[in-house]
């Protein structure tokens, strides 16, 4: 290596030597960035915190120019687009009524079944202040960071669907790795077959689906939604629709990072598992009759509530030396 540098720099002066040193330094940084990503992630977060205000200021006039350029093209199609939008609006009104009716029905079913409601997801709305559509990375920079409780790994959605995940979070800015990026892999579910898959970005606009579990049929037009498998993303967020066939199944994404202005960062946590129902200190281990009098914790009660209410054979249970409160489901009022 030293000989190579020497040959390269011999007779070409200090400038060539410093060029060679800088070249080696760049390569070392590239490998170091792979091995110790956190160092450069912190540097990136600090840099984006520092340049964030500048990006916001520079963006405003450029955005106006971009919109003006976009509008030139739409002047000639505005009448046709208007008619098309009216038709779509009427169609969407119909779907809205259907959705509201289904929502009401779902609420009634959940009430009847004592279903545990999905936790409400807290979210933060952030503005996109930077964008990188580059050969080796597809990212967005948001103007919210740890000061606004944005954390690494959180899902980012626009009004249409899932955009990506936070992968670096600075104090006032954060970075989003898009689903299309070649480093992105997220678990998804395909409906209606309910087949699970991994959505793998490859820097093309339509990421690839790597089928995982199940053997249900998949066809173009099937909906792809997020899943909470692995605790990475909130469930049931629209991702896109299936396109392509054969081995190369891809997803046309719902989200549009190129037109999004504001996005939502969703604070999703896997629900805490219920505490194990163990013997209560000071409570003698007795039979089912005494156990029915025990009061389980509220969270546990909510989970066990929808148990079947009939056809439970309690005879084998009575013969055991039970050390845990039992809920036999035969008398729900007492069980609670």
């Amino acid at each position: 290596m030293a000989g190579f540098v020497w040959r390269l720099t011999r007779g070409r002066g200090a400038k060539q030597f410093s060029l060679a040193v800088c070249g080696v330094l760049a390569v070392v940084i590239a490998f170091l960035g792979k091995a110790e990503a956190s160092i450069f992630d912190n540097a990136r977060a600090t840099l984006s915190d520092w340049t964030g205000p500048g990006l916001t200021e520079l963006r405003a006039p450029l955005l106006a120019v971009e919109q003006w350029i976009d509008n030139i093209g739409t002047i000639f199609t505005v009448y046709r687009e208007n008619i098309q939008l009216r038709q779509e609006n009427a169609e969407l009104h119909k779907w809205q009524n259907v959705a509201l009716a289904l929502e009401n029905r779902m609420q009634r079913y959940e009430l009847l079944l004592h279903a545990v409601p999905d936790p409400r997801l807290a979210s933060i709305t952030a503005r996109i202040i930077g964008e990188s559509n580059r050969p080796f990375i597809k990212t967005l920079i948001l103007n919210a960071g740890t000061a606004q409780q944005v954390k690494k790994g959180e899902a980012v959605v626009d009004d249409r669907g899932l955009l990506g995940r936070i992968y670096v979070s600075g104090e006032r800015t954060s970075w989003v790795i898009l689903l299309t990026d070649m480093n992105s892999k997220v678990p998804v579910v395909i409906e209606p077959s309910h087949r699970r898959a991994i959505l793998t970005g490859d820097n093309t606009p339509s990421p690839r689906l790597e089928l995982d579990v199940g053997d249900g049929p998949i066809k173009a037009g099937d909906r792809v939604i997020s899943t909470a498998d692995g605790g990475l993303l909130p469930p049931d967020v629209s991702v896109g629709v299936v396109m392509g066939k054969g081995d190369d199944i891809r997803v046309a994404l719902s989200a549009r990072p190129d037109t999004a202005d504001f996005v939502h960062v969703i604070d999703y946590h896997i629900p805490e598992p219920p505490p194990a129902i163990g013997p209560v200190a000071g409570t003698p281990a007795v039979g089912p009759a005494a156990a029915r009098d025990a009061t389980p914790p509220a969270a546990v009660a909510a989970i066990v509530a929808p148990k079947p209410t009939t056809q439970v054979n309690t005879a084998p249970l009575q013969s055991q030396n039970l050390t845990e409160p039992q809920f036999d489901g035969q008398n729900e009022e007492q069980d609670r």
Partner: protein
Amino acid sequence: MTSAVDMLERLLTHPLRFLSSALPVGLALLLVLLANLPVSFTGGVLPAPVLALAAVYFWVLVRPDLVPPFAVLMIGLMEDLLSGGPPGLWAAGFLAAYALTDRQRETFAGLAGAGALLGFAGAMLLAGATAYVLAMIIYVRFPPLPPLLLESVSTVLFYPLIAFPMGWVHRKIVGQMRGGE
């Protein structure tokens, strides 16, 4: 250390001259910021160009003394960090383009019109190829090539838009200060 003292001395004795000599690097850094704004003037058809490389290429041709290799490394690193990509890729690419341009400065500087555009295309190609090979080694797979080619085309198309204002800055500000030395 000595150079830092020299720089401080120059800043104190000739502040305007010092600032004008810092303009090439400053403009390149500004272009890094500009290239990473969330706007696309091509409607998302072309990826954002590597505008800073155009600035580096221009200034290496006209005033190589104002663009030392370390400054190119810093510009490339800032491009890497602000674009969100792996650090070092564009830094190495910029340095490769710098080395080629500096070595063949007489040839490149003599090009005009479409020839100048082709000259820059050569430098862009080398920078892109260097970044691609490095990315291939780091990721242990072949990154998709079309986005890189599109970005190269986009950057080459933007070169005249960068070169004209840079030429103006060179003639009216940096060159004037040089004449006053």
